[in-house]
């Protein structure tokens, strides 16, 4: 997979999204859409188009559900990719000021330890 040139990245937890569409409306970059698929509650959920997120975080604060949206800022500064031991999905090495080598799976959101 090629590394996205987007500055940010947004992950929607489909089982937590209630499909209120407030994030879609709020997104200035217009990169969120309502999915054709619905979750186990029967809600059509929000989805990321896959490109163009700026990492502004506006969708995060528009969303009423505590865990439905996760926004990664400075996505373009991240480098490595590997397979997540929890879910098998890809994850990225992600730096923050507090934790310079935080590893987090962008699929299942679990932190990955013992690796740099």
């Amino acid at each position, binding site marked *: 997979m090629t590394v996205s040139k987007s500055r940010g990245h947004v992950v929607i*937890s489909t*089982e*937590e999204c*209630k*499909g*209120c*569409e*407030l994030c879609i*409306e*709020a997104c200035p970059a217009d990169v969120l859409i309502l999915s054709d698929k619905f979750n186990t*509650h029967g*809600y059509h959920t929000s989805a990321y188009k896959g490109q163009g997120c700026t990492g502004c*975080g*506006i969708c*995060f*604060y*528009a*969303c*009423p*559900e*505590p*865990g*439905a*949206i*996760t*926004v*990664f*800022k*400075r996505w373009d500064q991240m480098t490595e990719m590997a397979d997540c031991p929890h879910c098998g999905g890809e994850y990225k090495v*992600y*730096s*923050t*000021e507090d934790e310079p080598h935080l590893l*987090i799976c962008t699929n299942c*959101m679990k932190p990955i330890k013992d690796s740099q």
Partner: protein
Amino acid sequence: MNNILKKSASFYDVYERRPGADKLTTTYCPGCGHGVLHKLIAEALDDFGVREKTIFISPVGCSVFAYYYFHTGNVQVAHGRAPAAATGIKRAHPDSVVISYQGDGDLAAIGTAEIIHAANRGEGITVFFVNNAIYGMTGGQMAPTTLVGQKTMTSPRGRSVNNEGYPIRMSEVIATLKAPVFIERVMIGDTKSTMHARQTVRKALKLQIEKNAFSFIEVLSACPSNMKLTPSRSKQWVKEVLADYFPLGVKKDVSEEFEPKDISRLVVSNSELPDALNLETAKVDSEKIAPYREKKINEEIKVAGFGGQGVLSLGTVLSEMGMRHDYQVSWLPSYGPEMRGGTANCSVKISQKKIGSPLVANPTILIAMNRPSLDKFENDVISGGLIIYDNSLIDRKPVRDDVEIIAIPATKMADELGNTKAANMVIVGALIEYKDLMSQEVVLESLGDVLKRKNLVELNQKAILRGAEFINNLK
């Protein structure tokens, strides 16, 4: 600013307290403003590092289950009483961060008195008041903040000024008080207003953390379900209609000049308590009470009679004396509004074991000092129990044949001693002698500490001795 915006650590990862299979999502409707405000509060608690010492008070209303979500201390309180509970909690734990979170029905209707007085005292708490102009949880009834003309389930023709009055602007009402430090009305509307609300939430919490200042933040919020609008349209309504009647902005801010408030001295510590209450530890000769430590005592006593007969004080004397014998005791009065002449009863428990509840439904001992009391409680006594009744006042015998019965003319005996009112102590003397509940010596010695009127101690000692003598004559 964090590089990752994700679910705050001040929320539980999984909402284990939530019943049912879904433990990931909140109970709020899609597009509800509560969730956003929850997130703003949780994020601030994370960033200020105060999650561990935060106590979140859930109200009655849609946010009643906030304790499912917030990974803080939690108390769910009676309808409207959040600021009163917050007052007690903050005073008992002056170092904690106490958040009183309420809706418009909770704060502006049933709990109006509580918020006004907590604000007036300037309690060191932070109040978040979510105003969506409607009762959400109960299904869309009119709220005190419902706009004029707004149709709700209980105002089907629209709120009318003649019938229901004007919507209350709570922030402005509270801003007239002297003690509050920071009052602002914000809204969860468009991005700009939500991000401003975020700053306000942080300022209010910071004022509590640093200065124990009272802040009141009113948050205009959407209720898409009850407004029967889409989440997007309902936010639009908040911005255009609700915020028109409830103007946004700072209503009061004296945070700059407000000096940090020391509230630690508002609480009396456990070690200071006996002094504050003027209590002394009872001095009891441990040798005299030693035999009673071996006994298996577990009595549930109902004392009943007319008000004025000393029914309640009979109970207090029994429980006070019980304490002096190292028993666990409880005393629970029940009486009408009259001081004299009404009916009164009290429940007393005396036990070697810890007492869970002070209620006595089925007494092991009934002390009946008048006829109505015997009529009322006779059938409640457990089989094998004891009924003591004053046969100088009660003109019938108990009908139960599965209990022990002592008829004692206590009032007549007290009269002979010179004071009718000592009848209760005659019964105390008889009871402890008959059941060997306590040391008579200790009771007589301690009577002076227990009775308020010291000139009656001698009379009451005589009454106790008379009661015991009566029992010994029976034996």
